[in-house]
């Protein structure tokens, strides 16, 4: 991070829609040159916050500044670029026409505007189609066009609202590579995404907003460990083992069978291929709930479920082509590993694999947003 001061400062920012408090006295700060993630479930207040920061809607309370200027002021807008969630290029204009419109709005001198527009269109693979109407573009091309419109004024700060949602795998990779380049150029990036892997990979810090309030703000790694708390332990035995027996071991919060793990992996892969992002809902949270409902999960993360053999897990259990494999969730790895060792000895079993994985940002996200929902 190239910290040279504050890019975004938010103090007590509040937005009401009638009686609904959409954003509730939030506070955070983004340093210049920082790649900052802003995460939250649907309706949590992410887009409302971005819209207040970019001057699209007015705040009802608190303060927000962009590069030292009041958020929404002409100066603040001049220094920012915005890529909204849904494409909003002018469909009746060509890509070139859209870029030239932005150049005139931002008062970029003609020669400079043309050079930059050509450069961005070439970098983003749109140059050959620069004279085609935006309405003839695919979703991925429109996203790239909108990004180039946001970048044309060479803004110091970029607001990116779900830049990769709805894109195919190749476009996602392309977009992420581009964002990494922008980060290296020292631009401040404010990113909202439902994709936890993306946030963990790209962001230096993330804030998680839920029901209009910031529930966590830290680096993805620290958040994963402190808020996630739940470790994953993949274990495989040389003989079939009853899931009920395993789920009763000390330290086991939750258990998934091989089938459930495979089903979850398949679901995740399908969603990635389809670019479900937003439509698939919350990346981690809903997926995890779906996995639990698909027969393997015994409880949602963060809850303790030690009742024996639940649902499909008991019947379809460990008899799979992958071996007798389970995924255990625990908050105490030492206790669980020693329990597994004792269990193996007691039943003359041999553990073929035991793999302890630290909690992920997705786990932290699910835990934080669910905790808040339960409080509500």
């Amino acid at each position, binding site marked *: 991070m190239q910290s040279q001061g504050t890019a975004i400062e938010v103090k007590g920012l509040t937005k009401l829609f009638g009686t609904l408090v959409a954003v509730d006295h939030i506070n955070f700060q983004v340093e210049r040159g920082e790649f900052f993630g802003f995460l939250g479930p649907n309706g949590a207040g992410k887009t409302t916050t971005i819209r207040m920061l*970019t001057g699209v809607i007015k705040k009802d309370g608190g303060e927000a500044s962009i590069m030292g200027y009041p958020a929404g002021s*002409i100066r603040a807008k001049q220094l*920012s670029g*915005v890529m*909204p969630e849904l*494409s909003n290029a002018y469909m009746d204009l060509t890509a070139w*026409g859209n870029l030239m419109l932005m150049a*005139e709005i931002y*008062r970029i001198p003609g020669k400079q505007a043309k050079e930059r527009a050509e450069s961005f269109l070439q970098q983003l693979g749109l140059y050959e189609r620069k004279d085609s109407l935006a309405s003839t573009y695919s979703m991925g091309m429109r996203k790239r066009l909108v990004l180039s*419109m946001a970048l044309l004024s060479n803004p110091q700060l970029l607001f990116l609202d779900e830049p990769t949602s709805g894109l195919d795998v190749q476009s996602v990779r392309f977009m992420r590579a581009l964002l990494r380049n922008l980060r290296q150029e020292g631009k401040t990036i404010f990113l909202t995404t439902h994709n936890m892997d993306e946030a963990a990979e790209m962001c230096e810090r993330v804030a998680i907003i839920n029901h209009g309030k910031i529930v966590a703000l830290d680096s993805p790694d620290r958040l994963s460990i402190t808020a996630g708390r739940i470790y994953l332990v993949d274990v495989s035995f040389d003989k079939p083992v009853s899931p009920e027996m395993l789920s009763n071991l000390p330290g086991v919060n939750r258990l998934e069978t091989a089938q459930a793990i495979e089903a979850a992996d398949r679901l995740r892969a399908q969603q990635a291929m389809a670019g479900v992002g937003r439509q698939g809902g919350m990346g981690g949270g809903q997926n995890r709930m779906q996995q639990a409902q698909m027969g393997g999960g015994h409880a949602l993360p963060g809850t303790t479920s030690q009742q024996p053999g639940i649902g499909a897990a008991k019947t379809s259990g460990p008899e799979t082509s992958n071996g007798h494999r389970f995924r255990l969730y625990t908050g105490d790895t030492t206790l669980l590993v020693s329990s597994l060792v004792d269990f193996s000895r007691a039943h003359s079993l041999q553990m073929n694999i035991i793999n302890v994985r630290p909690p992920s940002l997705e786990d932290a996200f699910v835990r934080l947003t669910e905790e808040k929902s339960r409080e509500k």
Partner: protein
Amino acid sequence: MKNSFGIIDQIIRSWAIVKKDMKIYYSKGPVVLMGVMFPAFMFLAFAFGRNMSAVSLMPGLIAISVFFTCSAIAPITMPWETQARTLERLASSPLAIWTILFGDMLASMLTGIIISIVPIVIALAIGTTFVDPLILIVAIILGSVCFATASLIISSPPASAPQYSQMISSFVKFPLIFISGVFVPLSELPEFARSICFISPLTYFTDLARYSTGGGNYFPIAADLLAIIGFTLASWVIAVKLHNRTLPLRV
């Protein structure tokens, strides 16, 4: 990149809105047709079967051409852009709300001025004599600004369906034709119409157009001009206030 952020800077930026509107909205066939064909049909409807010369109807034709052209697109630009989600793009760019409105108004005004050439050419072709062309030019410019500005008020409700604004627009525009002395001189209008004709800016424009063709004026020329300027200023203030209130509700 320029770093001044005053009124002049915003007016310069508004030119981008003008060019965008011209390309996207005003170069479309239906707009031109609305500005030319509709007044032509209205003209024919009044001319046929009545004991009125075509020349005496020319001021009315010029008036409704300018009026309908200027008010064809301005009322639906905002809802249209809300629906297309391009308004969010404009709202997050370094443009004040009034700058966007000013650009929309200028685009409407320029189209109205350009379209007014058509009925003027027709009027000249059928032998109309313009006794005071300067007043006609001033009237067309001021009238275009006035009608375009007033149309911005119609686009202020935070609806995203252009049809909604179109409906309000029609509801407002058509009655004005009948109380503004467009095809029937104000002095010949029924008492009721004459008692309310002053609430329509089209009245003053038509009066000026009729004067410029030697048809005589109902109000003093200065009063006509001041009334149009007054309507324009009032419309501008109201439109900006309403849009400042409603634009954040749209996006």
